């Protein structure tokens, strides 16, 4: 057996923490804040990973966050604070006589102070079949991995338990494409947090999202041989399931404490400074029982952590007096809040407000003029205010008439959110999860010179857990800093949504959204069918995300891309046939001349991109014009699209006495490879045959300039309002490399840039280095980008003119209606 003395020097007291979860680590952080050098700290965790934010499992499941985003303390943090971390090595025994803990691997560690933060276990109902494969709880990252594995295959899932956790699991699985049924024993979902009315509204919303909710459902058996196949209810109903999630509740984990003879009832019994029945042993979190109460929410854990840290740091403290809790459901788009006792009856009175059109329900329960409890559904913005009034025990008799309308109506703080936050008292709680009040945030902002939301998160923990108070914190920043505060908030795409371009792109993939209605529904568009700003952007993002699968939505494209020509100021169109690399021949020129004659086209012009533009074509003539151009072998030049426009070339080594490479054939090759691809904005290329650069490649999105030994590849140039010369991406030697780098660069732009963002502002935003790391330094990634580009090209290189000229696609665009009958 290994024997490791916790601290050879033994200069500091040795603190051992059992449990690497939120409560234990928060206590450690609070201790370090108070007295960084007092303890030599060792932490044992059962899970084989660093400490993470367990209340973020729901966003992890739904794909709104990834694991890195929910990590609280990184391995560096443990190292920097000289904390010895044993993860994946749970303590199995406490020897109180020798003051030693023994871990599963046999490590013995001595302690002077021992902190138990063993959390809770999910309750497993011991029905037949509960050990089958495919039956999981919803408690840690491993559970989420199993759920994601099942969701990847699709199929039916059953969630047993319609409480907070169960519903978050159900919504997460449904958003991952599973067909979810929730079984709930009580008469309405979340019965501990919601009254029947709010429960009904919530069940309606879940049903609308495609989740089946069965209440008064008593599970008799989980059916299956090795793997689960369904759930049978006591009334005989069978519900098929490939995955069963048990989310019926939690039970404090006091096993270790009980084994070593500490006082354990429902949880480990502690006093107000979190001391157990052994004065050297403390306990915090979901494993404890304090004044007869056990807690399963995060805010009380953090309050316990503070009292415990005060005590361990030997700071005088009032101790922990128990928590009044409030609840929010962490499901995007469902706003539910409850706090206190809302059962009603007795001497209580209630104020109820409903707005069926908006699906809003508010119920505030009063007793002796004070708020005793509140349930809010649909509009929870005043939850924090009611909660504050309730905790302070304020008499609200004078506010009663307008109480249901919230703080904005309750005299004093007006509707302006900045005034409202400025009017709050210093002890008003801003962050419920971490118990941070306004005074501490304002003090941190002014004393430490904080200027951003992330700063405040880092220094005070406010909004660092569930994040629902981040708006309040930003208002506090603005109110405190005044004009110096620059909100780092991202700009929404348009007034139809709160989402910015980047989050929409991410969520389209994460939530597997494959149609415009799916995006608008799931991301809560505020208009029925978007507008001229967001619809073209969404159409592009969907096309780029699901090549070959998403069907282009013509009604969401700007007219030019819908009729594949350029609208002019008089409502006529311009037509530009493709001339590969700017090369043409007598046959094509004759066909163009003939078309101009035949359709009476008033203007024929050579463009800046080395093409011929036919201007003033009537809309109804377009299909016939294209038919004639197609017949001469010409296809659409996409001069109208957010797409590959032109590849301009100089005559190069083919003719020029200075030319060092074949620029014309390179240009033709690049154009043949890239034409037809839809992009965030128009995309222009050029190939010059020598550094004299006659093709002006250094103001193009992708410019290729020949050198003696190969090619220089340039990116991010623009010849528009703000002329911007390209930056050198890299130098390559072979033609094959030019093609691969070109395809990879375009694909990176297609995947990362925002709609209507040219390469120049995109590169200025992300930095050339970002592009080089992905396209130049990482050969595997370059290959992967190139492959994705070529896959998307398989379904993109279809001539839109031919489809319309000879296959009748979108015929309605080109023919007017005619009068059938007059009365």
């Amino acid at each position, binding site marked *: 057996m290994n024997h490791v003395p916790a601290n050879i020097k033994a200069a500091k007291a040795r603190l051992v923490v059992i449990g690497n979860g939120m409560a234990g680590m928060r206590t450690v952080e609070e201790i370090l804040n108070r007295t960084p050098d007092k303890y030599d700290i060792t932490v044992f965790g059962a899970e084989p990973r660093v400490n993470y934010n367990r209340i973020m499992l729901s966003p992890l499941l739904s794909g709104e966050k990834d694991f890195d985003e929910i990590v609280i303390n990184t391995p560096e943090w443990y190292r920097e604070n000289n904390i010895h971390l044993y993860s994946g090595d749970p303590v199995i025994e406490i020897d109180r006589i020798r003051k030693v803990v023994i871990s599963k691997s046999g490590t013995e560690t001595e302690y002077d102070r021992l902190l138990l933060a063993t959390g809770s276990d999910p309750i497993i109902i011991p029905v037949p079949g509960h050990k089958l494969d495919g039956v999981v709880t919803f408690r840690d990252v491993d559970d989420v991995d199993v759920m994601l594995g099942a969701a990847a295959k699709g199929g039916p899932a059953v969630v047993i338990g319609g409480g907070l956790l169960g519903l978050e699991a159900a919504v997460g699985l449904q958003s991952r494409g599973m067909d979810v049924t929730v079984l709930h024993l009580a008469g309405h979902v979340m019965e501990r947090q919601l009254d029947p009315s709010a429960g009904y509204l919530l069940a309606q919303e879940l049903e609308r999202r495609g989740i089946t909710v069965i209440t008064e459902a008593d599970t008799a058996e989980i059916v299956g041989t090795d793997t689960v196949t369904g759930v049978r209810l006591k009334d005989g109903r069978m519900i098929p399931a490939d995955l069963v999630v048990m989310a019926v509740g939690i039970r404090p984990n006091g096993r270790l404490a009980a084994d070593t003879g500490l006082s354990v009832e429902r949880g480990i019994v502690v006093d107000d400074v979190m001391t157990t029945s052994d004065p050297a042993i403390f306990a915090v979190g979901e494993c404890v029982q304090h004044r007869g109460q056990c807690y399963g929410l995060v805010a009380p854990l953090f309050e316990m952590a503070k009292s415990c840290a005060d005590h361990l740091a030997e700071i005088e403290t009032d101790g922990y007096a128990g928590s009044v809790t409030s609840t929010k459901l962490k499901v995007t788009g469902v706003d539910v809040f409850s706090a206190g006792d809302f059962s009603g009856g007795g001497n209580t009175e209630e104020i109820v407000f409903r707005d069926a059109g908006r699906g809003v329900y508010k119920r505030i329960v009063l007793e002796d003029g004070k708020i005793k409890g509140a349930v809010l559904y649909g509009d929870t913005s005043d939850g924090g205010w009611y909660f504050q009034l309730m905790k302070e025990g304020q008499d609200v008799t004078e506010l009663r008439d307008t109480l249901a309308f919230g703080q904005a109506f309750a005299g004093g703080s007006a509707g302006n959110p900045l005034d409202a936050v400025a009017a709050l008292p210093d002890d008003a709680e801003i962050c419920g999860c971490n118990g941070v009040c306004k005074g501490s945030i304002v003090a941190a902002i002014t004393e430490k010179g904080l200027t951003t939301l992330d700063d405040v998160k880092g220094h005070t923990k406010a909004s660092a857990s569930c994040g629902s108070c981040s708006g309040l914190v930003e208002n506090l920043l603005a109110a405190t800093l005044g004009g110096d505060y620059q909100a780092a908030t991202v700009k929404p795409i348009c007034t139809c949504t709160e989402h910015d371009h980047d989050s929409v792109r991410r969520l389209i993939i994460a939530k597997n959204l494959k149609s415009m209605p799916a995006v608008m529904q799931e991301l809560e568009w505020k*208009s*029925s*069918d*978007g*507008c*001229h700003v967001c*619809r*073209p952007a969404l159409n592009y993002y969907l096309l780029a995300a699901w090549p070959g699968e998403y069907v282009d939505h*013509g*009604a*969401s*494209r*700007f*007219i*030019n891309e*819908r*009729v594949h020509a350029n*609208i002019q*100021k*008089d*409502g006529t169109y311009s037509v530009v046939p493709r001339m590969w690399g700017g090369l043409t021949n007598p046959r094509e020129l004759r066909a163009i001349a003939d078309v101009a004659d035949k359709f009476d086209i008033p203007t024929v012009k050579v463009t800046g991109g080395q093409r011929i533009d036919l201007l003033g074509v009537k809309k109804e003539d377009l299909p016939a014009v294209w038919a004639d151009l197609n017949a001469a072998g010409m296809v659409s030049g996409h001069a109208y699209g957010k797409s590959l426009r032109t590849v301009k070339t100089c005559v190069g080594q083919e003719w020029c006495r200075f030319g060092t490479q074949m620029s014309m054939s390179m240009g033709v090759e690049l154009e043949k490879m890239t034409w037809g691809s839809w992009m965030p904005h128009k995309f222009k290329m050029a190939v010059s045959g020598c550094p004299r650069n006659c093709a002006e490649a250094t103001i193009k999105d992708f410019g290729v300039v020949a050198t003696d030994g190969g090619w220089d590849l340039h990116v991010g140039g623009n010849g528009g309002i703000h002329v911007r010369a390209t930056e050198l991406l890299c130098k390559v030697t072979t033609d094959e490399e030019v093609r691969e780098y070109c395809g990879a660069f375009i694909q990176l732009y297609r995947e990362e840039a925002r709609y209507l963002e040219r390469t120049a502002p995109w590169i200025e935003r992300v930095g050339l280095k970002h592009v080089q790391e992905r396209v130049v330094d990482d050969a595997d990634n370059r290959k992967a980008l190139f492959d994705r580009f070529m896959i998307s090209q398989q379904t993109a290189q279809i001539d839109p003119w031919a489809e319309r000229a000879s296959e009748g696609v979108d015929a*309605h665009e080109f*023919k*007017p*209606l*005619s*009068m*059938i*009958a*007059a*009365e």
Partner: protein
Amino acid sequence: MTNNLTWVEVGPAANIPQQGARTLQTQTDRIAIFRTLDDQVFALLDRCPHKQGPLAQGIVHGHFVTCPLHNMVFSLETGEAQGPDDGCAAKVECQVVDGIVRVGLTELQAGLRHAG
């Protein structure tokens, strides 16, 4: 104005794409007939009051259309410009009876009376 309208049938509403429009050429001008996502049909003169842009070619969203030339947004219900822009696109009376779109034309539009 609605008193002396001549109602003409222009075919099934289904011939107009959802979130799209078709045009109808009359004796005097061109009418844009829109069909929205909720399957309602509206008509405006196909001429933006700003620079005469062809409204039928704009993006249709909600009960609005965005002019393809300079992105002015008009209500299909009233023809009024939205947001900070001023102006009003001319509204044309329009109804759907048994799935068939009928447009109410003035005497000039219907060619019953000649201008001037």
